[in-house]
């Protein structure tokens, strides 16, 4: 892990994952097998890996999804300059403390307008921070600003959450939510999958616009394509629930050219008997 923290000095660490082990709840199916990761403020980390490597599971665990059970390891989130145990927090508290998951498959909420839904979420966060809540009219104006900022249509205000949205619209709607809730740590779970070129650009531009010195992005992806638009500071390769290689953006290009197989083979031969946590960098 040293490689990640030593790059910059005097930076805030937003997320610290140590020796994380997790399985599917109510089963013996181990998915995450000793994962270490440190994400600092201002950074974009890409987590890449073949299908079934545990990428999406990792993102869901960070959001507190009840389908998975953490069996070992720690996850800490920086909240007001203190490290808090993320695993002890309820999903809603994680969100209120700045964790945001952009879903691979956003869920439809019939009958509830985007404005109602986002205002409810926004006000929960306001409440948590002791700030005044917004009334519907105020919030509509706020939402319009965000839509303009992202170059999105005002039709998103009144439409029911994700109902009858195209794949691209759903992903854009996730970015809209991110813009409204302005999270500390945004986890984008395969946000690029199934996107056409135009949607990919809108989504990537949105994420880039929302990047600041104080927040961080965890970009989970199968393909290098999105990394041409959102330039990562670090790239990690996840395989069988472990990070088997980390590097800068050139690692992603290497994967694009040679595939995951080469990396996996390299990892398997050089670590015939791997000890968890000793491989990174």
């Amino acid at each position, binding site marked *: 892990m040293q490689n990640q923290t030593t790059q910059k000095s005097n930076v805030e660490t937003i997320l610290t994952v140590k020796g994380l082990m997790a399985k599917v709840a109510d089963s013996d199916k181990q998915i995450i097998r000793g994962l270490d990761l440190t994400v600092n403020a201002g950074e974009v980390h890409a987590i890449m890996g073949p299908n079934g490597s545990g990428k999406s599971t990792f993102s869901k665990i960070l*959001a*507190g*999804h*009840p389908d998975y059970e953490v069996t070992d390891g720690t996850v800490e989130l920086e909240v007001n300059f203190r490290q808090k145990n993320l695993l002890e927090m*309820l*999903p*809603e508290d*994680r*969100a*209120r403390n700045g964790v*945001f*998951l952009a*879903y691979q498959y*956003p*869920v*439809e*909420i*019939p*009958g*509830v307008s985007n404005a*109602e*839904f986002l205002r*409810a*979420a926004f006000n*929960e*966060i306001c409440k*948590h921070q002791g700030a005044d809540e917004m009334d519907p009219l105020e919030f509509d104006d706020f939402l319009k600003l965000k839509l303009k900022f992202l170059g999105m249509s005002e039709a998103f205000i009144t439409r*029911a959450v994700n109902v009858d949205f195209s794949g691209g619209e759903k992903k854009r709607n996730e970015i809209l*939510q991110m813009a409204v*809730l302005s999270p500390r740590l945004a986890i984008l779970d395969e946000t690029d999958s199934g996107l056409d070129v135009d949607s990919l650009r809108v989504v990537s531009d949105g994420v880039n616009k929302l990047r600041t010195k104080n927040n961080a992005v965890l970009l989970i992806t199968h393909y290098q394509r999105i990394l041409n638009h959102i330039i990562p500071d670090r790239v990690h390769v996840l395989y069988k629930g472990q990070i088997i290689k980390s590097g800068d953006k050139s690692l992603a290009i290497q994967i694009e050219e040679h595939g995951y197989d080469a990396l996996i083979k390299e990892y398997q031969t050089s670590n015939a008997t791997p000890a968890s946590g000793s491989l990174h960098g």
Partner: protein
Amino acid sequence: MPETKDKPIISSKKTQLTSNDMQLTGREYKYGFVTDVEVEEFPKGLDEGIIRRLSAIKGEPEFVLEFRLKAFRHWQTMTEPKWAHVAYNAIGYQNLRYYSAPKKRGDGPKSLDEVDKEILDTFNRLGIPLTEQKRLTGVAVDAVFDSVSVGTTHQDVLKEHGVMFCSISEAIREHPELVKKYMGSVVPYKDNYFAALNSAVFTDGSFVYIPKGVRCPLELSTYFRINAAETGQFERTLIIADEGSHVSYLEGCTAPMRDENQLHAAVVELVALDNAEIKYSTVQNWYAGDKEGKGGIYNFVTKRGICTGHHSKISWTQVETGSAITWKYPSVILKGDYSTGEFYSVALTNNKMQADTGTKMIHIGRHTRSRIVSKGISADQSINSYRGQVKIMPSAEGARNHSQCDSLLVGNQCSANTFPYIEVKNKTATVEHEATTSKISSEQIFYLKSRGINEEGAISLLLNGFCKEVFKELPLEFSVEAVRLLEMKLEGSVG
């Protein structure tokens, strides 16, 4: 049973407050308490003698007794309907009491402030304060406790506008001509088994008459409380909106938690004359039985309105959250040309509740319109069925109907059914029917949680979304209450 004839007409006793009643289902049903009050009640059983005595105790004119007896004789020739998608144990009609009322002291209360403290407290606990100082502003309330109306608030304001709002018993005595003209005109006593029974033994209920051209200045509301055990409640409500008048009426209902099932068989009749509008809203929260399906109210209700006049409108809005069995089809007969009928319904069933509810829209007049929006929510092992009929008669030139029936399933053991009956006898009519079934999924809940909204807020948002079209039809304060009621019922069922 029928030792009624030679025994004293009325037996007097104190109902016992049983603490067991309170513990059965814990906090889930907060209206499950029993009021300890001295009552006058009939012995169990039903025969002509009981009906004559009921009529006598109420001081009714001959025509009402005749109506009751004809209904009773007809009822005896009928059999209980079996077509509804519900299953329940046979009802022992001879094992029920047909009259139970809080005992009057002396001549009885002159005003609401003189009503028994226990009864006022009961309504206070139910959130319906009746006394002058505390009564709800903007809403006139008629409070019915078991078989009798205990009083009606805001009489002065209503009188000023010529609005008659009183118990049906009082109306029979004070306005017999109106009662004679309209009672049974919308729901004839021969209509169905439960309507016939009600016509024979109805005890109390509300009466409303809005004079020509008057817009009723207050919301009118009746609150029904079943308290006594082993007593059927048979209320009868009659609302007449004269030409060009307008009224909004709301009824609420609760009952104590008891192990035995209780029968509630009401009849509601609405009459709208030319250009008149009646909006009738119900928030029904009768005790629904415990988790195992023990106890609860059998709710067999006949509600029907007739748009007699042209350009008249009748709108039913119901939020049905209680009762072990619900059998209820608020309907509109669209007789007047250009008249409109509406039915907005949210029916929630949980535990082992069974609901078979819907509407009938009978188009007779030209260019009549009807709209049906039905939202069924079923959870646990409950069964929730929508049954609706749209009938376009040959005379209904240019009639239109739109029906939308949505079902929401919570969990894997419940079921939802839709039984639409459509009959069109005029080629110029347009009839549309849409139906959907969906589920509240744990993924939806998690999605909302991951945006900072807690479980309660998530369920509330989802329910609100599902029921939005219906809730917006309710008076504002009641729509807030309705959402809360649904949330409370569904707590623990989702996930």
